[in-house]
């Protein structure tokens, strides 16, 4: 019996041994492949890498996110491109739910939390320069978001204490942008750098960020020109006085690498869009030197017999007409944007360039603001800067282009030209504005996000009417004024978005509601 008891005890001891050890459970349950968040707060290097991610996602770097948040909406609605995939309804003005959803969740889910983390940690660590960079990027990111929807969560983003995150009015968001830029500019006044090579825009150079802040202020100032002219003038003049982009060396890009690529490089491979008819009409009519850089000749050559192998497609093609592929008969994007294996260069993602800044100043000058030059001088500098950046044209060619009286042409036999303005600056103020915005539209290509915003604000460039709209709120010859809110903004609680929809700025949640700044 004693023997049995001894053995029994042994058995129990064995049991205790095997189940008693939970000390290493903590270690077992620690994922070795990831980073503890606590480590980020102690390391400026890791914060820089988190910032890099916010920069890349802030311009929807990842290819499919880019396609469903920008390419299928802003790029198509700005008529840089026309859709050739029959299943993509957005070119017929239908805001397909699940895609637009990702425009929202990509930003709020992927980009905004990173940015907040970096901004908070840089403030905690007394990194004024890094903090200023994060603030400027925040303004850049959120102006894109509010330009899509109008009222959006901004001031209380990331507040996990709240059950409902309030939507700020677009007006209040824009007003606070200028204040935030003031703060950032003050923080950058002493120069300095932060985040080094992790900063994908300027490799940590505070002085360059300062110029970007001023240029961004100018963009935002012009955006509110019709909503609050006094604010627009004051902020624009402040921006120009403080120093904005003046040459292509100032341009802001998000750099890419082999893993984190320029999304156009990937989505171009999918063959789902081609040059728009509007593009063909303008670029061919102007005999624009940027044409061969922006687009390729159609694979089928000059199929409409207009003497040029560049072929644009009317937007808003019906599903049925797209059952026959339009790809070979129309122009794909320029070689530099295509897959590296097909001769592309995986270019950096353009955020803002000096040409745009000249056009912004030209528009301000046209309104009589102190922009450091006349509207014509600045307009012509804008064209010059863009052609130097985007084409191999020599000085003589550029001069000839600026002086050219060429106007847009019919994109195909029997069609009218999309517009009548020439390149050479002149005409009424409204025509001059059309020239400025049309040239800006060309200069910032392929930044459709900005182009669609400016189209809504100014009505330019003029567009060919779509063949078909399937959206009862927006006719084929009108333009979409905003994105309607997406499913994610109603889940799990719709309190915040409901308040935004019923607010004075919107009144209802439709594609034809004009945003606060859309007052022309």
């Amino acid at each position: 019996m004693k023997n049995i008891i001894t053995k029994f005890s042994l058995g129990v001891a064995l049991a205790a041994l095997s189940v008693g050890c939970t000390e290493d459970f903590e270690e077992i349950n620690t994922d070795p492949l990831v980073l503890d968040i606590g480590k980020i707060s102690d390391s400026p290097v890791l914060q820089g890498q988190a910032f890099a991610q916010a920069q890349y996602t802030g311009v929807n770097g990842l290819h499919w996110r880019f396609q469903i948040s920008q390419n299928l909406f802003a790029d198509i609605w700005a008529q840089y491109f026309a859709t050739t995939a029959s299943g993509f309804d957005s070119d017929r003005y239908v805001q397909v739910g699940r895609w637009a959803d990702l425009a929202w969740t990509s930003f709020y889910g992927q980009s905004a939390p990173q940015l907040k983390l970096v901004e908070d940690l840089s403030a905690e660590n007394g990194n004024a320069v890094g903090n200023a960079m994060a603030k400027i990027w925040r303004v850049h990111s959120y102006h894109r978001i509010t330009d899509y929807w109008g009222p959006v969560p901004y001031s209380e983003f990331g507040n996990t204490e709240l059950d409902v995150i309030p939507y700020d009015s677009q007006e209040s968001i824009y007003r606070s942008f200028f204040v935030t830029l003031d703060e950032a500019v003050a923080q950058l006044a002493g120069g300095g750098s932060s985040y080094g090579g992790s900063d994908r825009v300027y490799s940590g150079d505070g002085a360059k960020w300062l110029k970007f802040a001023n240029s961004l202020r100018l963009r935002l100032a012009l955006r509110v020109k019709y909503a609050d002219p006094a604010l627009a003038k004051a902020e624009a003049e402040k921006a120009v006085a403080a120093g904005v982009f003046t040459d292509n060396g100032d341009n802001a890009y998000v750099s890419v690498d082999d893993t984190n690529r320029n999304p156009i490089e990937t989505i171009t491979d999918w063959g789902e869009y081609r040059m728009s008819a509007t593009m063909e009409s303008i670029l061919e009519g102007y005999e624009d030197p940027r044409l061969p850089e922006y687009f390729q000749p159609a694979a089928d050559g000059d199929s409409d017999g207009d003497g040029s192998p560049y072929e644009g497609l009317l937007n808003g093609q019906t599903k049925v007409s797209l059952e026959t592929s339009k790809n070979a008969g129309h122009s794909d994007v320029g070689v530099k944007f295509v897959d590296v294996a097909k001769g592309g260069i995986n270019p950096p993602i353009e955020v803002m360039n000096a040409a745009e800044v000249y056009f912004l100043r030209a528009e301000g000058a046209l309104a009589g603001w102190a922009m450091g030059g006349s509207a014509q001088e600045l307009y012509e500098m804008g064209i010059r800067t863009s052609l130097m950046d985007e084409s191999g044209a020599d000085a003589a060619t550029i001069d000839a282009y600026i002086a050219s009286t060429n106007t847009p042409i019919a994109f195909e036999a029997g069609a009218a030209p999309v517009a009548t303005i020439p390149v050479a600056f002149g005409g009424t103020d409204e025509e001059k504005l059309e020239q400025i915005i049309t040239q800006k539209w060309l200069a910032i290509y392929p930044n459709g996000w900005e182009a669609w915003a400016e189209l809504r604000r100014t009505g330019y460039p003029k567009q060919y009417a779509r063949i078909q709209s399937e959206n009862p709120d927006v006719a084929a010859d009108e333009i979409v004024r905003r994105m309607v809110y997406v499913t994610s903004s109603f889940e799990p609680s719709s309190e915040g978005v409901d308040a935004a929809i019923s607010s004075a700025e919107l009144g209802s949640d439709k594609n034809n509601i004009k945003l606060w700044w859309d007052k022309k």
Partner: protein
Amino acid sequence: MIKKLLLFLVLVFGSYPLLAQTKTVSGTVTDAADGSPLPGVNVLVQGTTNGTQTDFDGNYSIDAEEGNVLIFSYLGMSTKNATVGSSDELSIALDEDASQLDEVVVTALGVERQKKSLTYATQGIDAEGIDEARPQQNLVNSLQGKVAGLSIQTSGNGVSGSSKVVLRGNRSIAGSSQVLYIVDGVPLGGDISDISPDDVASINVLKGANAAALYGARANNGAIIITTKSGTEGGMSIIVSSTLTAQKGNIQYDYQNEYGQGSAGIYNPNSTGSWGPALDGSTVAGWQPTGATSYSFSPQPDNVDDFMQTGFNLANNLSIRSGTEKIRTFFGYTHELRNGIVADNDLKRHNVTFKIDNNLIEDKLVLSAKANYIRTDLFNSLSTGESFSNPWRHAYRLPRNIRTEDAEVYSYIDIEGNVRQNYWKPGDNGGANPYWTINENLSETMTNKIIGYASLKYNFTDNLDLMIRTSLDTSSTTTENKLSNDSYIIADNGNYNTYNYTGYEWNSDFLLGYNKEINEDFGISLNLGGNNRQTRSQWVRTDNGGLNAANIFAVSNALNLTSTQDFSTKQVNSLYAFGQASLKDAVFVDLTYRSDWSSTLPAENRRFDYYSAGISGVISDLVTLPEAISYLKLRTSYAEVGNDTDPYAISRNANLVAGGFVQLQTTQPNESLKPERTKSFEIGADARFLDNRLGIDFTYYKTNTIDQLFAQTALVESGISTKFINGGDVQNNGIELIFTGTPVRTSDFNWDVTVNYSKNTSEVLSLSDGLDELSYGGDFFRQFRLEVGQPWGNVYSRGFARNDAGQVLVAADGTPEVTSGQDVLVANYNPDWLGGITNSFRYKNLSFSFLIDMRQGGQVGSLTNAILASDGALESTLAGRDGSLVFGTNIFPELDVVQADGSPNNINVNAEQFWAKIGGRNSPVGEAFVEDASNIRMREMSLGYSLPQSILGNGPFKSAKISLVGRNLFFIKNNASFDPEVLINTNTNADGFESFSPPSTSSLGVNVKFAF
């Protein structure tokens, strides 16, 4: 080394004495009750280790001397002895052993118990014949239709492929609702597709948490307990078996054969749709990108069927069972070759098992060990659903005029010498030549798997024993994907991917057992056990991101090499105790208690306890019942089972992305996670009538799974996309009925019938505070949602827009008005009931059985039909091609369609425009493409013939049998245009959705089996 091995083999298999002066005694063993032959009766020469078993006809032959005593033993029968006389023939009839009336079943932790003592429902499956009627993909599929309450669906990967096996309904919101597999006491990390049917001795299904509570967390979904064959005492038996099966696919989509490629009635050789002109045999230009030749524009009704071939499956098995009183061994080797119905979708498998039980100290100490090595080479596993490398996606979409002989020429060499894909719409996003896909999108997977255990069992006294065991299920997998240049979109520049996985589940446990008959009427059994489970898995994937040199598949040939990695590990320690008290061997009380400590939970909630209790009474042993009732047992039990979660769910981290990104994880962890819990109640009765010829087993159950751990969508503006929460209550209740009957029982002819019926009702009672629905996401076609107050798993899609009166609205252009989002409930896959009827007949040496499997209710939304409709490939798209389609009249006539002003619809529309609006990939109207999942099918049919002893005579064979087996032979009824049982994958949200599934497959095979 070789000498040692030989010596070892001789010792293992040859350790029985050779007798001198012997003669061969033969005879037949029958059941005294009805004279039917008894197969598998152990026959042993007393005092020796010389033994054998009776064959399928109850025949045996054994070498013995006159005067030897033969011992005949058989489970459930009284053992009999007979002395060998002068005759060479010795036949005997065995009587039922009343004390052993009840079968013995293997329950949790490998404890063998009498079935009558169980307080919960289990269903044993006759493993006899499983090797003959072997399913094409997965052993578990042989349970289809045979177990009440069990639902089995298969994933459409071709010759390989896992099955989704669910007992008593889905219950886990975020985790798996699938059963746990236990093979010889070893919990498997994955499914059982690798296990050879030839090795299986018995299968027992523990249906609820009640039965499986002792297996801990993972058994809340029930468990399937498989016991493999062991060596048997006495003699050696060698079985050689060979099965050749042929498979045929049956494509059921309703293709039209009147119109070919093009649009608006005009021929276009580049079109993927069939909206062109009538197929009138006129000569049209070919589609080939190089020097298109003209050909006859005529219907190709077989062009999709031509894509299939007859599949073959050849399985060969050698089993050797041998043993002495001291050492018993089993050796099994199975080799399988499978060729699928899609060319080059092949599998080769070697499966070697060796099992040994060694009585180290007589009656005291037994050492047991098993090693099962499985090597699988899988070629070109079929991608599923919308994957661009799923060949079915492209085969089903063949325009109706494409000739097989043209499509088969899937590539050409361009002027630069590059191999290019031959396709009617070059470069299409989503299209491809299916013959290109199967020839130029290749994959190869090699898996090495070892399942094994070693255990020691020591009997301290007759009443007290201790078992210590360690067991392992480990595997490693290497996959290579080779995509040639010009595989549109997925690999325009070719691509090469690799995937390397290793993982294991390692369990170590002990079990201390104490049994005591206190007195004649009262007995107890107490057990105390513990388990340590460690799991680990890791993988690395590489992706070449294109190839520099065309079609050289090497990592060094990468255009843009990226790699990803995963690692996961977890440990669970457990202690448990269980006991049973029996009164008069008729009333049984069960109690179990288990504590788990899981590494995945926060320190304060790391330990969780749960228990079960049950009682059963054999009424027929307690009171005298009318004579017609030969047996009546009642049982009831209640159990709670806790469950932990996946690793790393309690802290928020940041991921590192190549290129130098730090990326915050978007799920907010729950630092105070509680374990989830399944509460399960069941009550049942088992009654047999008329001398056991009629039996009914009835079970009612109800389970609630509460405090579930899942990620809930958060307001993304709060800075997180999802948060991990504890919540939810998913309830399942239902009944299971099993009828067994023997309408005819004579010595020559026997007819057995088994009927299974089950009905499960699920309801999501709650999710979490303020949350009344949870979406699993989905795709352009559908969203899978759980909604409070609704059955499990609603499928939402777009629907026809309706006015307040419920009438369907038509737009001004004659096409339907469509809801803007996926906000219409269109399908729920849950069946109203499931049933199966097995009839088995035996006439002398001939046996015949068939199984009819039924499923009533449930719906499936079909993306395939949505796409084929917008392609104009279906019969339904023929009407109104001339523009005369009127929605609600000659299409969807069952709908009441009105215009915006309420007047009846009379607007003509073109069929192409109509189907473009509601079909297609990107915004299909799911409501229009939902089909009924009810079906009745001939699941299994088997005809067997055992050669009688008179023919076998004194030849080398103890027995020989030939069987003809058909599986899934035909649908008796199927309302859907596809097989509703085939899934895109085995994930939770795959139910109720069909997307380019492989066709239903019928198989017919022949099996020959010899015993030496």
